[in-house]
């Protein structure tokens, strides 16, 4: 008998269907991955299994069979006996998933106490045991610490400890690593694998990342718009996808499609030269070096990627290049860029978050027009024409001009941000994680757009990213950053095929399989 069988599940939000006709099974000890983009209903499905839907959502029909009990018909009171004990949950974002005012030990002990382990000493011993089991050194200290004192990876280990505390037969892992750096992500996934191998717990892995799903699951369920598009053995689905949507996902996932490298054109004069850049921040009394002696060059008309994990100093470097931050020492030379306001015409920044970088009160037309107004480019009519031209260039329909950012999708907003950056007529575009917040299919479209613009307008890109697979696809040259320093620089081909530095090798190893 299957461990879990979901049959014809339908969930509504405020009466509107979000999930419909979803059926799949999880066998004991198996990893089933549910893959989909935002809004596909994958998280809703996972939460519906243990009856943890937000207040305005309800299971409309269908069965959730755990063993021979239909959880869909159970009351909340009865479900509480299952949650934590027979089904564990590993949530999405470790930074906000622990109660900030309670110690780590208390929060692990809580799940034990909730299910009847009252003896203080017994609970404490078990907590220390669990902390050690999820690979946290010095459990005694950890148990006394508060969540904010731990790193993201350590917090996710704590959450895993909570999920496995009572030896559940199923763990629901909802995007367990999407908020973590690639190397940490790999270690966490390895930990889940090990625990599964030890205890035979089944895992329902919900993820947007086809790469992660491909490398870690036995069975693959592909979801789109609240329904299942395709499912089957992971290896079979990947080898011969039947649904058109799965094929597109596979093609767009940068990690899974080995596109040819972009080799840099014959050496041109550099558009940007960064020399011995240092940037210090004061944290309390002692200075902290976010950027520590960084040097690199970007040839005109090419894309240079700064790649690294969080805290590597890549964003600080980018902000110094666009002069939103001053270097503590060292120089940044942008060839041909004047000083003062003229600099802003020459160099433009595109932020990571298209939700935050557009003024919610302006229309798209006003947003794109703003640089033109600031630089006094022509009268109203010529500015209008130019705005229409820019919007068309980033492949947005003309009717977005009168709309406001919140009426647009994430991909559309990022196109607006790019159009605004282009309005100034820049030669250098600094893209700070500009595609990281987007779904893969949208990401692929934006990357294509950037590629096309570069060819047409001869733009130079400084591309900041944590995602090696994306970097491999778009950049000509790469600098790998770690703890404020560049550990390796070279053409993309060199760095990816023949990495010299151990850190680069570790990063590359963290990319899910099929690439390399």
């Amino acid at each position: 008998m299957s461990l879990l069988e979901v049959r014809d599940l339908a969930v509504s939000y405020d009466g509107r269907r979000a999930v419909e006709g979803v059926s799949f099974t999880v066998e004991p000890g198996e990893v089933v991955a549910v893959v989909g983009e935002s809004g596909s209903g994958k998280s809703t499905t996972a939460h519906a299994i243990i009856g943890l839907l937000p207040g305005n959502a309800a299971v409309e029909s269908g069965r959730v069979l755990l063993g021979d009990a239909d959880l869909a018909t159970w009351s909340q009171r009865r479900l509480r006996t299952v949650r934590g004990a027979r089904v564990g949950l590993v949530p999405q974002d470790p930074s906000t998933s622990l109660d900030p005012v309670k110690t780590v030990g208390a929060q692990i002990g809580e799940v034990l106490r909730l299910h009847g382990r009252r003896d203080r000493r017994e609970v404490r011993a078990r907590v220390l045991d669990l902390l050690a089991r999820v690979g946290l050194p010095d459990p005694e200290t950890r148990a006394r610490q508060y969540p904010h004192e731990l790193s993201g990876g350590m917090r996710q280990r704590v959450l895993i400890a909570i999920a496995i505390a009572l030896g559940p037969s199923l763990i629901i892992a909802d995007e367990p690593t999407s908020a973590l750096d690639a190397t940490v992500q790999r270690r966490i996934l390895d930990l889940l694998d090990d625990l599964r191998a030890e205890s035979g717990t089944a895992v329902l892995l919900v993820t947007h990342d086809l790469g992660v799903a491909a490398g870690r699951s036995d069975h693959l369920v592909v979801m789109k718009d609240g329904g299942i598009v395709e499912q089957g053995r992971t290896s079979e689905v990947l080898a011969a996808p039947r649904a058109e949507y799965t094929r597109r996902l596979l093609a767009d996932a940068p990690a899974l499609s080995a596109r040819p490298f972009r080799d840099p054109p014959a050496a041109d004069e550099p558009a940007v030269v960064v020399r011995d850049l240092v940037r210090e921040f004061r944290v309390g009394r002692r200075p902290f070096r976010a950027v520590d002696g960084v040097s690199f060059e970007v040839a005109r008309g090419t894309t240079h990627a700064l790649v690294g994990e969080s805290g590597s100093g890549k964003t600080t470097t980018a902000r110094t290049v666009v002069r939103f931050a001053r270097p503590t020492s060292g120089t940044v030379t942008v060839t041909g860029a004047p000083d003062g306001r003229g600099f802003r015409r020459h160099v433009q920044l595109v932020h990571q978050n298209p939700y935050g970088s557009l003024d919610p009160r302006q229309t798209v037309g006003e947003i794109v027009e703003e640089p033109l107004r600031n630089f006094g480019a022509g009268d109203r009519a010529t500015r209008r024409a130019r705005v229409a031209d820019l919007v068309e260039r980033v492949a947005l329909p003309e009717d977005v001009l009168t709309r406001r950012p919140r009426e647009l999708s994430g991909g559309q907003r990022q196109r607006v941000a790019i159009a605004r950056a282009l309005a100034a007529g820049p030669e250098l575009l600094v893209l700070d994680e500009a595609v990281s917040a987007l779904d893969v299919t949208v990401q692929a479209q934006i990357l294509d757009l950037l590629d096309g613009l570069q060819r047409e307008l001869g733009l130079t890109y400084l591309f900041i990213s944590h995602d090696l697979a994306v970097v491999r696809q778009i950049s000509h040259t790469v600098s790998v950053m770690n703890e404020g320093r560049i550990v390796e620089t070279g053409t993309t081909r060199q760095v990816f095929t023949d990495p010299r530095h151990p850190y680069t090798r570790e990063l590359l190893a963290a990319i899910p399989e099929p690439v390399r």
Partner: protein
Amino acid sequence: MVLLRVEVAAVTRYLLSRVGQAALVLWAAFTAGYLLLQLLPGDAILIKFQNPELGLSPGQIAEIRSYYAPGSPFLDYLRTLTGFLHGSFGYSIDTGTPVVERLGEALPETARLASAAFLLALVIAVVIAFAGSHSRTSWIRGALLSVPSLLVAVPAFWLGILLIQVFSFRLRLMPVIGGSELQQLVLPVLTLAVPVSAPIAQVLASSIDEVSTQPFVPVVAAKGASRWWILWRHVARNAVLPTMTVAGLTFGELVAGSVVTETVFGRNGIGRLTEQAVNAQDTPVLLAVVVLAAGAFVLVNLVVDLLFPVLDPRLRAAS
């Protein structure tokens, strides 16, 4: 060990800077109050002594005035300031008695009223916010959670009058005059507690609401916790912090409320004293009341600030 010493030094520095800031605010409040009340166009001494029945000549009035405020204005300011620092607030123009004496008579009465009212306000606020947030029936929830905004809109003096009307005249539960100490306290405490409880309840309810949407809440639910367990052990703990800030700020409301309450119920306290001082333009008394209230306010909010790191471990590192 070394780390510990560094921490102690940091905490001491934080404490000192907060106390210093509080002292600065108090001094500024005193100075501003002093300057403003010196600007007075009306003249309290004239009001009191120009009455022809007293038969004082202008010369005698000038003499009296120099008794109250001798020498240059700046010296007078310094004298008053040092007086305040030594706990001597000068003499009441109205009655001629030391201001300290008048404050001393009035303070216990108001302190009793205000502290009882504040406790009752906390109880009302917590009951409304928790019952409202916990209720799953949407109309009960809606009704309970809209109570605070109704309470905010009720004028305290009107509420007092209404209570007298209902409990003393209609139901005859409370004597209008006479009665035991406790009986005399019930209606004023209720009158004062209601406007103070409303903002606390509002912030507590909205903090509970906000904390409930945070991602750690479903994680606790996934451990198998009940709604009440989550609300009591996790959400409440987190919602206390913003509520404390507001509770500290309602202290001003408490002072203003006691002026009104004491007037309505004819109780002798700081509020009544303030009213008399305003009517008589008795500036030394008014200045003392203002500085006293500001001092108490600053002290209460200093305590709240210092309690924050105790309750929120994240702030321990920051401070």
